[in-house]
């Protein structure tokens, strides 16, 4: 082979690859259909698609690995000219972890829990290099330094569980680099990390690519992450490659209706509007018809699309698209797809008031309990003062471990607060129910007054009156977990309807169907079990179950973070519609600042269980006044290759709040000095009306 030929030869060349499994009926169902993919040395390719699109299967097939049950039905995978599926197992083992490295999605699970991380990297080096023991040790430290872990010598001696998620991911990258890979496969490497950590890891990957020139295939559902590291992007849909081209073209002017819709469904920091949702859902493996797989959801659909399967062809913009009408995709303009900006809720009477709420997970020993001593150390959540108006959406934002969900659980009565009060205002006509008559834990504030009354919420859910319980409902993050797998949809919906309204028989069924229709599912869902529904459908049922109680307040715990973006947009739209129709207030917990921007009227920023900044969403996003808010907003990604996140603080994860002073003192990029360590900063208004408040010494000094 001549030099010219080898330089023109792609590093990875996948031709006509089809992968499938045989179902119980003996039919072959293809999860990859006729995929052509070419990666040249030095490129960074992003593989984008929603769950089930086959992107991970394709990436793993690049090292001839197929999950059990899957087999190749057609095509070839060539790496450096070698057909990988023809290689013997021993050669493949040398290749995997050697010249082809893999960074898995969940590094915490991919690392061996019983072995020190340094030893695990040395093990990779032993398998894939000829280095001696001492050289391996030195190289392992080098690698840890290369992935920008502080104090590599100290870190190498740690066990995986002693590292934070971001650190674990860095160790996994170091391990993949140990074999000296020519091709690095990254399978959703930043999914599940906090925004700031994600921004740092992506920065590291960019840096690695610049310094080593390693070819990368980056698999992700997150177009923002792809935009950050990839120069080329391939979009997968229902096991097919539907669009391929340079990142800028694919992310700015995609010549295919699917990525167009996908881009429109991503909420943006820049706009307080709900993203446009993509109707429908992708076909299950083997269910795509004779025509284009995307045709049933496509805005450009023509009769031809249903019968004739498009081929991948060259289109303007140096892209290749699998669409008969790719040239028309530009006509589907983004503004036409997105919805108008939402109107903020104007109602001002308070529905929920939290005063000086404190929650502690610390368990006291029995001696302390007898002595009546409070638990030692600072509380997990402390001094939370929040007011939520009727019909308003208040979002609690912060990184994982910031205590957002803890606050939510305390309001729901599932976790007793150690301190503070929670009050719910309810209409006066239900006074008898509200006071709970028999026990005195629900006291009325303005007894005898006309108008609404504030009820103190009992810390424990079992001591709350039924009508109070009805007014507060919960929707959870994980759709697989929020419905009982053994209950049909009918049973799930019957629970609030029976409990709060005593419905049964025909009335129960009618009301259930009514709610299913309101969340845009039909009566035929009544007999389904959770296992027979998609994530988005399950979440709709969970939302219907919460709203069936006709609550005043719905607590939403990361309700869309487990969903694909196109499904997320539909669920956000549903939540907004229900809020408008019924005047329900939401207390939303989310780590996704773009989702919060789309949904919330007011934002409260939490760090280590302490409020940093509270204010109207528009003000907080336009003028973030607490250094932590700036850090969070700076790290948010946009699906735009030219967007550069600002990394303002280190992505150190703190184990607990400091004993004294400002909660953010240790990571703050604008730290003033000892005053931050010693004194808790007081609240201070940023705007004239005093609605936007911040808790930072910086603003006192000015």
């Amino acid at each position, binding site marked *: 082979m001549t030099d010219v030929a080898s330089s023109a030869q792609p590093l990875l060349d996948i031709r006509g690859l089809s992968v499938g499994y045989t179902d119980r009926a003996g039919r072959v169902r293809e999860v990859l259909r006729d995929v052509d993919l070419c990666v040249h040395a030095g490129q960074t390719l992003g593989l984008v698609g929603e769950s089930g699109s086959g992107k991970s299967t394709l990436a793993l097939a690049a090292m001839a690995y197929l999950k059990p049950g899957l087999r190749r039905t057609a095509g070839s995978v060539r790496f450096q000219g070698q057909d990988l599926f023809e290689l013997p197992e021993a050669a493949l083992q040398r290749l995997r972890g050697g010249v082809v490295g893999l960074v898995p999605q969940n590094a915490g699970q991919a690392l061996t829990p019983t072995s020190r991380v340094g030893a695990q990297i040395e093990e990779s080096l032993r398998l894939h290099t000829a280095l001696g023991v001492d050289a391996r040790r030195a190289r392992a430290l080098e690698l840890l330094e290369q992935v920008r872990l502080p104090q590599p010598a100290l870190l190498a001696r740690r066990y995986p569980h002693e590292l934070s998620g971001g650190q674990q991911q860095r160790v996994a990258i170091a391990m993949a680099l140990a074999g000296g890979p020519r091709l690095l496969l990254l399978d959703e490497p930043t999914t599940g990390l906090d925004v700031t950590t994600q921004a740092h890891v992506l920065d590291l990957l960019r840096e690695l690519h610049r310094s080593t020139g390693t070819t990368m295939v980056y698999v992700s559902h997150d177009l923002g992450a792809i935009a950050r590291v990839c120069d080329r992007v391939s979009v997968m849909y229902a096991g097919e490659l539907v669009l391929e081209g340079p990142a800028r073209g694919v992310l700015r002017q995609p010549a295919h209706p699917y990525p167009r819709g996908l881009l429109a469904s991503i909420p943006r920091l820049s706009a307080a509007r709900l993203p446009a949702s993509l109707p429908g859902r992708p076909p299950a493996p083997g269910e795509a018809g004779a025509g284009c797989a995307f045709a049933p959801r496509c805005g450009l659909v023509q009769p031809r699309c249903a019968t004739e399967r498009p081929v991948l062809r060259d289109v303007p913009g140096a892209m290749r698209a699998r669409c008969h009408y790719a040239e028309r995709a530009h006509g589907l303009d983004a503004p036409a797809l997105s919805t108008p900006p939402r109107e903020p809720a104007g109602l001002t009477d308070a529905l929920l008031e939290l005063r000086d709420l404190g929650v502690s997970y610390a368990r006291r020993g029995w001696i302390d309990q007898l002595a009546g001593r409070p638990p030692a150390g600072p509380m997990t959540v402390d001094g939370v003062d929040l007011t939520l108006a009727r019909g308003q959406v208040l979002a609690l934002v912060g990184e994982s471990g910031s205590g957002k969900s803890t606050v939510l659980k305390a309001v729901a009565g*599932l976790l007793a607060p150690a301190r503070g009060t929670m009050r719910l205002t309810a209409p006066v006509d239900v006074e008898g129910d509200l006071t709970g008559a028999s026990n005195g834990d629900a006291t009325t504030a303005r007894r005898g007054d006309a108008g609404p009354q504030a009820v103190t919420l009992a810390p424990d859910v079992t001591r709350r009156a039924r009508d109070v319980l009805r007014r507060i409902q*919960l929707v959870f993050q994980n759709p697989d977990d929020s419905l009982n797998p053994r209950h049909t949809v009918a049973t799930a919906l019957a*629970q*609030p309807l029976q409990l709060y309204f005593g419905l049964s028989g025909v009335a129960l069924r009618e009301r259930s169907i009514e709610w299913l229709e309101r969340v845009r599912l039909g009566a035929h869902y009544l007999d389904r079990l959770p296992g027979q529904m998609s994530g988005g459908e399950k979440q709709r049922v969970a939302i219907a179950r919460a709203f069936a109680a006709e609550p005043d307040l719905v607590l939403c715990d990361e309700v869309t973070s487990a969903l694909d973006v196109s499904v997320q947009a539909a669920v956000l739209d549903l939540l907004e519609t229900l809020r408008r129709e019924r005047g329900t207030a939401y207390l939303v917990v989310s780590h996704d600042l773009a989702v919060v921007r789309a949904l919330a009227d007011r934002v409260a920023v939490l760090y280590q269980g302490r409020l940093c900044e509270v204010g109207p969403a528009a003000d907080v996003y336009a003028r973030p006044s607490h250094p932590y808010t700036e850090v969070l907003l700076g790290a948010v990604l946009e699906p735009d290759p030219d967007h550069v996140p600002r990394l303002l603080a280190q992505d150190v994860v703190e184990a607990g709040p400091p004993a004294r002073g400002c909660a953010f003192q240790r990571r703050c990029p604008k730290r003033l000095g000892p005053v931050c360590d010693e004194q808790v900063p007081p609240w201070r208004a940023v705007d004239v009306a005093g609605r936007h408040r911040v808790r930072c010494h910086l603003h006192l000094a000015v």
Partner: protein
Amino acid sequence: MTTPARPAGHWGQVLRDLVARPSGAVGLALVLLHLALAASSPWLATHDYKAVSPTLMLLPPGAEHWFGTDHLGRDVYTRTLLGGREALLVTLVATPVAVLWGGLLGVYLGLVGGRLDDVLMRVVDALLSLPWILKMLLLIVTFGTGLAVLVPTLAFFYGVPVIRIARAAAHNVVARDFVLAARARGHGRLAVIRRELLPNVLDALMVEGAMRWSWMLLAFSSLSFLGFGVSPPTPDWGLMVADARSYLPIAPWAGLFPIVALSSLIIGINLTADALAKAVGVDRAQKAPI
């Protein structure tokens, strides 16, 4: 969507999956055969089970006595056929009782936790640390033999380990969001147990129940073998093996046939339990040994 709009019942699906496995089909066939034989044995018996005949002692299997005769000249075929009835009757009553009380208590403890859970689980540990035969004999020696003592004794002691299994299974469910949602809605404890927890631990309890049944059969036969179970002349496999023990070198058939009968039943139950565990997705190998 590949799934039908109207779901097949969970247990119907489990049964189909169970029979589709070779171990499940064989096991279930063995168990059903034993149950059928036990129910119809009075009509299948060829002789009087207690007819003693000094002239017919220790006859080898032949045309008249298909399985031969024992040391008292009783027909082994008849006695083997009838020998499982008592054991099956006792265990078929005691097993559900054991699974029911152990399962309910376990699920309750798994939900409430706290001090009650701490104390009761230490009692369970203490009970489990004693060899079963010791505690069993203690009760039987105190209260005497007979079904009125045997059934409650077996049901009690074999329910204790079920507490653990049910508690562990409930623990896996209690922290899940749908249980939190039910608690936040304000459902009472019993409603949460009945609607949210029990349907999700039933799989584990079914498998556990099948295993308990086979162990209980062995325990009952062992008690009979030791002379604390069925009293002669009622035929019982354990008792028959005990009687035949001294004559095994010269008349192995008197012991062999009841052993084969008991073993095939136990194997049948174990195969069924294994297949059931796989069909419902509870792998026994993953559970803590009790």
